[in-house]
């Protein structure tokens, strides 16, 4: 019964979160993002009462979070389940002592990370690892599948832009392989060795009055131990290491003696010392190296697979070459990020904003924000631009790295970057032809066209009003000049405020025509 409940809740959470990350059609209600807000590490950053809630639950019942709320843990349960179905030698778990030093060291590292080294937190956070796996590995596969279907059934499926970035893909895939292989053979070993959330909650779980217990009817038959994904039941000595028990409840159903229960007891009378077992062989780290090697090959294969850029047609044309190179002084920070410091400190690089950005503007930073900001999103305008009225990234962010923007009017005031125009690169200047694509796309009039050239010329050239610019990047995304564009958005270390682009109270003029003018 408990197991059924656990499996049901876990499946709902996992399906909803996966769908939230993968959905590009808008079918999944955005309200689902609250599941991301309930995640443990994001709660550290944003919602202390959620954090407190989890700690209390763990203190009372053990690691419920790991069993039904953590998507990365549920994914590993799924892999373990598959392993059970396909492994020739049926999966049998057995008790092994915890890797005490590794767990404590990683937890310490994690705590240091919370204080000062955000990249460590994002690389260790199970929810963020899940998010990156979804966004960098499964999403390209999912979209490619969609595009194949779009080729056959155009009425039901529409082509989507597929993006694979090598470094983010490699990182996400390496972690996936590592945790995946461990879970295929050893259940929740990743959660009980590497994951700092598992370790931390394990410390609290030790005090839980309601826990898995073996009573005196136990005959040490070992049935429970064989199904224990936490590798934490020692049936011979009749012990349960609750710090590693992930409340999977597999043991409850298999016991023939009715000796296992998830029960309440005032006294904590179990022997805590685990059996001495032969020392660790260091197998996991060599497995990690192997998986990293493998992922490069995998990455290369996927990068070749089904990826089509939108610019194939425009390239290879002789005209429109730029003359002046530039380097953006600073990456453009996503809406709501406030400042570089705020963004890097709060973001766990879960990629939910990247997945939800309808314009494919948000991109994980590999080097733009330095090592501290590894895989933290920045706005890039090569394939699209930030929709003037859109605030979705700030709505879904579970860590308040992107502070919520409530109204469109607020978004219209927000300046995330500032436009720079390089006349020397502009086709109006270099080729004496009309263009104006940048001003055409500008929602605020920060770029406008003014007469250009000798008297009698019909040309117009962009003129810049930086105080109106919101940094949406529409101009940069559409500028036809390559490789360096004639207009780009320079990032700001700290977001600013743009002057209002128009007076919202101004009314539309109505006229009564007396003639057509021709």
């Amino acid at each position: 019964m408990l197991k059924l409940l656990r499996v049901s809740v876990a499946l709902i959470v996992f399906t909803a979160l996966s769908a939230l990350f993968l959905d590009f059609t808008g079918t999944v209600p955005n309200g689902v993002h609250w599941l991301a807000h309930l995640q443990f590490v994001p709660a550290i950053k944003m919602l202390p009462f959620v954090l407190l809630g989890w700690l209390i639950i763990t203190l009372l019942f053990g690691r419920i979070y790991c069993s039904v709320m953590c998507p990365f843990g549920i994914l590993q349960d799924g892999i373990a389940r598959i392993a059970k179905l396909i492994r020739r030698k049926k999966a049998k778990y057995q008790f092994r002592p915890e890797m005490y030093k590794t767990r404590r060291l990683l937890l310490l590292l994690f705590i240091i990370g919370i204080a000062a080294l955000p990249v460590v937190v994002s690389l260790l956070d199970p929810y963020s690892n899940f998010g990156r796996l979804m966004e960098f590995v499964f999403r390209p596969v999912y979209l490619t599948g969609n595009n194949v279907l779009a080729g056959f059934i155009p009425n039901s499926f529409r082509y989507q832009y597929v993006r694979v970035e090598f470094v983010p893909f490699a990182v996400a895939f390496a972690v996936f392989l590592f945790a995946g292989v461990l879970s295929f053979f050893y259940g929740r070993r990743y959660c009980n060795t590497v994951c700092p959330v598992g370790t931390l909650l394990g410390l609290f779980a030790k005090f839980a009055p309601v826990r898995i217990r073996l009573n005196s009817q136990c005959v040490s038959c070992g049935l429970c131990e064989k199904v224990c994904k936490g590798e934490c039941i020692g049936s011979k000595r009749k012990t349960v290491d609750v710090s590693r028990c992930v409340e999977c409840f597999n043991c409850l159903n298999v016991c023939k003696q009715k000796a296992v229960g998830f029960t309440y007891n005032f006294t904590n009378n179990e022997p805590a010392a685990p059996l001495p077992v032969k020392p660790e062989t260091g197998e996991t780290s060599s497995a990690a190296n192997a998986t990293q090697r493998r992922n490069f090959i995998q990455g290369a294969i996927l990068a070749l697979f089904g990826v089509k850029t939108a610019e194939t047609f425009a390239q290879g044309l002789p005209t429109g070459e730029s003359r002046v190179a530039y380097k953006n002084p600073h990456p453009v920070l996503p809406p709501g990020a406030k400042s570089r410091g705020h963004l890097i400190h709060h973001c766990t690089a879960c990629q939910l904003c990247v997945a939800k950005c309808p314009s494919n503007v948000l991109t994980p930073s590999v080097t733009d924000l330095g090592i501290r900001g590894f895989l933290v999103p920045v706005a890039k305008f090569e394939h699209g631009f930030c929709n003037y009225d859109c605030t979705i990234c700030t709505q879904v962010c579970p860590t308040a790295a992107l502070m919520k923007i409530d109204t469109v009017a607020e978004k219209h005031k927000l300046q995330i970057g500032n436009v720079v125009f390089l006349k020397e690169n502009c086709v109006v200047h270099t080729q004496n032809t009309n263009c104006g694509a940048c001003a055409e796309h500008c929602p605020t009039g920060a770029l406008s066209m003014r007469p250009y050239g000798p008297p009698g010329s019909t040309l117009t050239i962009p003129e810049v009003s930086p105080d109106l610019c919101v940094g949406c990047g529409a101009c940069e995304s559409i500028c036809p000049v390559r490789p360096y564009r004639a207009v780009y958005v320079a990032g700001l270390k700290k977001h600013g405020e743009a002057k209002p682009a128009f007076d919202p109270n101004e009314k539309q003029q109505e006229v009564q025509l007396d003639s057509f003018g021709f």
Partner: protein
Amino acid sequence: MSGCLTRIPLLANPMEMNRKEFLQTLGVAGTAFAAGTFDTLDTFAQTEAKDGPVDLVAVMDGEPAPMLRKAISELGGIERFVKKGQKIVVKPNIAWDQPPEVAANTNPELVGELVKMILAAGAAEVVVYDSTCDKADKSYKNSGVEKAVKDAGGKMAPADDDRYFTEVPLPKGVKLKSAMIHKSIIDCDAWFNVPVLKVHGGARMTIAMKNCMGLVSKSCQQSFHKIDLQQCIADVCTYEKKPVLNIVDAYRILKANGPRGKSVADAVLVKALLASTDIVAIDTASTKLAQKFTNVPLEDVGHIHAGQQLGLGTTDIEKLNVRRVKV
């Protein structure tokens, strides 16, 4: 009456019309006149009927749908352009994530009514699409056109990926020798060009010819800007399958900050509509109409002159058979 009209062939070229068809057309016009639909003709001095079919209709003082119906009936009815069982494309300008009131996009009521009329004329299907500048789904939705088309029984087609386009040669193009044309245009029997009247920072005006830039994919559009925008607009209009009719939505005219517009104050409510088989003439006429609210000289709109040079139509409106009517 419709039975009579269905026999009238497509009159893109008035020279092809024989005496019998001509008389039939006059008969239709006469019937309509007698029925009192032309009740305000006398308010315009220039409306004395010239010989031959109507080349250009200008309508004022109405809501989008009644003005459209008026214009089409002036031109000889929808059956002049649509045959039973045909696959028809309507190509509005819905490039922007803006509401109808800003006039950055073709009026949804107009597009919806046109789809209805085409289907009523017996078309097998009506497909509507645009190669948008803002995000396609948002532009389709917030322009109001998606809903209007679906309510009218038409179909919205996606156009936000190069795979929806096919490269076709443009032998008559001066600088643009080929273009990625949307597959629905390539597959259709006839298409309607339904732009909205707007000023444009780069092309100066965006009307019917500029709306043809939406025939091509986004990446191809970018190459227009790279090569020579004004010439490329005219070049893409040389694509062999010309629109059977150009309908310019001037219910609202975007007079400033075009083509996207910043707010409703950039547009002016004019309540006019133009329709013509001549793409250069309708752009010329529309530019002149817009001059009541803007200061873009016709000479500055390079693509209109390039279009005349390429023989796509005439800027000399006086030579055409023009009707100016009120609803």
